């Protein structure tokens, strides 16, 4: 659906995007993960045809953006990071205005507005002025405005910034619904939990460069640290550990009454059963996941939110 090839963009002496390439398949939720200032928004602006690249090409559904910007703009919906709405207009009138810019026939547009408002759960508030909405509600209307022309691809630039967990969950549900309907979604964020929940594939971007990309599983393979589970026992002797080593196929390491087992969550029941058989009393269990934060830290030496 989207091919980005050797894309670069500089602002004066600063190379905001530096020779990045990636491909997004139809129906994917593709995450662009990176800290603030990594180049995510610049990349998205170039993909939205509002910023010209210095080098490289972007194809959307087979159309090269340079020279076919208008065609591409009909194929994409963009949810900007800012709440780009007219505060003194109602949600309905905002959507009517934004929909009109795409040349949607009036009757059809009104129908689409009502359906979109129903999707985001704000149909009953459609005549209220945007300035009376909460931050989360505004974010939802911000998304609705990008959906009216039925785009094939939806670009979402940090769509959950500054909102409460409930609204965030609502937005996630909307994204998942849209994706189930076949929409390709490009999602930029610096929240790794969001990417982990939503995205099929991820590109990690830092200082304008893509430092890794793939599925979550593929990314986890990139670093030596593996997922592990830490068990805390009431009492754990060396003999107990040796017995466990004889029965479990996973690497074990002991630290006083704590035992670190390099296994996955799926393998947890086997470890517990073995402990029960050896009459070892488990006091506490802690999962040490290999997450994107750890991957980012491992690849760049810095935290995602630096």
């Amino acid at each position, binding site marked *: 659906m989207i091919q980005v090839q050797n894309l670069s963009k500089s602002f004066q002496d600063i190379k905001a995007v530096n020779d990045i390439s990636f491909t997004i398949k139809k129906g994917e939720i593709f995450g662009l993960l990176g800290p603030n200032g990594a180049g995510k928004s610049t990349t998205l602006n170039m993909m939205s045809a509002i910023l010209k690249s210095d080098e490289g090409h972007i194809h959307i559904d087979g159309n090269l953006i340079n020279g076919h910007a*208008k065609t591409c703009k009909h194929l994409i919906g963009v949810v*900007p*990071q800012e709440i780009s709405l007219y505060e003194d207009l109602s949600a309905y009138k905002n959507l009517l205005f934004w929909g009109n810019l795409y040349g949607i026939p009036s009757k059809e547009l009104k129908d689409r507005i009502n359906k979109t408002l129903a999707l985001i759960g704000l149909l009953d508030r459609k005549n209220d002025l945007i300035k009376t909405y909460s931050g989360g509600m505004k974010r939802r209307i911000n998304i609705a405005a990008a959906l009216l022309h039925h785009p094939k691809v939806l670009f979402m630039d940090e769509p959950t910034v500054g909102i409460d967990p409930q609204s965030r969950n609502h937005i996630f549900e909307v994204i998942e619904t849209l994706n189930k309907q076949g929409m390709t979604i490009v999602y930029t964020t610096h929240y790794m939990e969001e990417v982990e929940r939503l995205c099929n594939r991820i590109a990690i971007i830092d200082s304008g460069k893509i430092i890794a990309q793939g599925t979550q599983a593929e990314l986890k393979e990139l670093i030596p640290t593996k997922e592990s589970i830490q068990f805390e026992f009431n009492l754990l002797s060396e003999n107990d550990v040796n017995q466990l080593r004889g029965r479990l196929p996973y690497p074990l390491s002991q630290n006083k009454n704590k035992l670190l087992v390099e296994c996955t969550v799926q393998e947890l029941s086997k470890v517990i059963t073995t402990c029960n058989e050896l009459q070892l009393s488990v006091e506490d269990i802690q999962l040490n996941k290999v997450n994107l934060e750890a991957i980012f830290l491992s690849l760049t030496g810095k935290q995602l939110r630096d």
Partner: protein
Amino acid sequence: MILTILKKDLRLYFSDKKGVLVTFLLPIIMITLFAFAFGGVGKKKSTPKPLGILVVDKDSTSTSQEFITKLNSLPTIRLISSEEEKALDLVRKGENVAALVFEKGFSEAIATNADVPVELKYDAARDIQMRIVHTILKDGFTYHLGKGDVINQVQLKTTSVIKQSSTKAHPGLVQAVGGTAIMMLLFSIAAIGGGLLDEKEAGTLKRLLIAPIKPLDILLAKMGTAMIVSILQLTVMFIFAWVAFGLPIFMDASSLIVLILCISFAVSSFGVFLVSTVKTRQQLQGMSTIIIILMSAIGGSMIPISMMPAFMQNIAIISVNYWGIEGFFDIFWRQLPFIDILPKMGVLVAIGFGMTLVSTVLFKKNIIEIA
């Protein structure tokens, strides 16, 4: 505690360079302009440019020619020879302040020591300039006719080329309505143009750019809004002037409508031009205040052009105010036919196109690139 807050406020105030500029530079500019307009500046050092007065010699005798030469030697006036019909037409159109007509029998009157048949035909819209010219000429006549210091012995007859009638507006009213209307319009339009910067700050401009429309369409739409508001504002102002002061707006309604359209176009383009030169609302506020007040001052919105020295009158032509006010005088006072007002309308349209062109370039550079 008070001192701490005071220090902070002063620090913040002086960190706003545009604000400081408006506070100090604008009054200095205004004082300078008004000082030149009301006189008393530079006269000791330099000789003012002589006032051009048309002269029509219907007597055509050596006496009249000799007298014209003597008058022309006065340092404050410059006599320009002309045919009567052409001279009166130029005065009527506001090109010259007055025409001095030497009637037949001038030489005989000199010989018989009778009252000289000379008439000063003037444009009453330039009343102040006219009074200066009248005084200069009367003094000149008295001196050269050898009538000593009894000035009143020389009666210089004066006649306005445009007859005051019930259908005509008083020039003072035209100046007040036209001058104020255009100045206030400039402020309104600058504020409307500023909406583009609000859109940029609110993020809606970015969404507009994302939509499948040309960036130029955004600028032209904003200009269209400004133009509609301009037309409405000018219309309301002139209707008010008609109701409250009896300004005869239906005297030449078609010319007035076209002139309002031309002024609205020029002012709207000026509004988008202003917005395109700045990057923030704050910058616009400072910039627009300075430019609009300056343009209104030199363009005749604050003080009539005729009161200004010649060099300022020459500068006035760069302002929208000047062409608009002159257009209103052509309609309401001079009652010129449409074809004679057309050049002024043309200048306004040219200003509009010029500023729109520059705005499109600046808009791309200053507004879109960083939206």
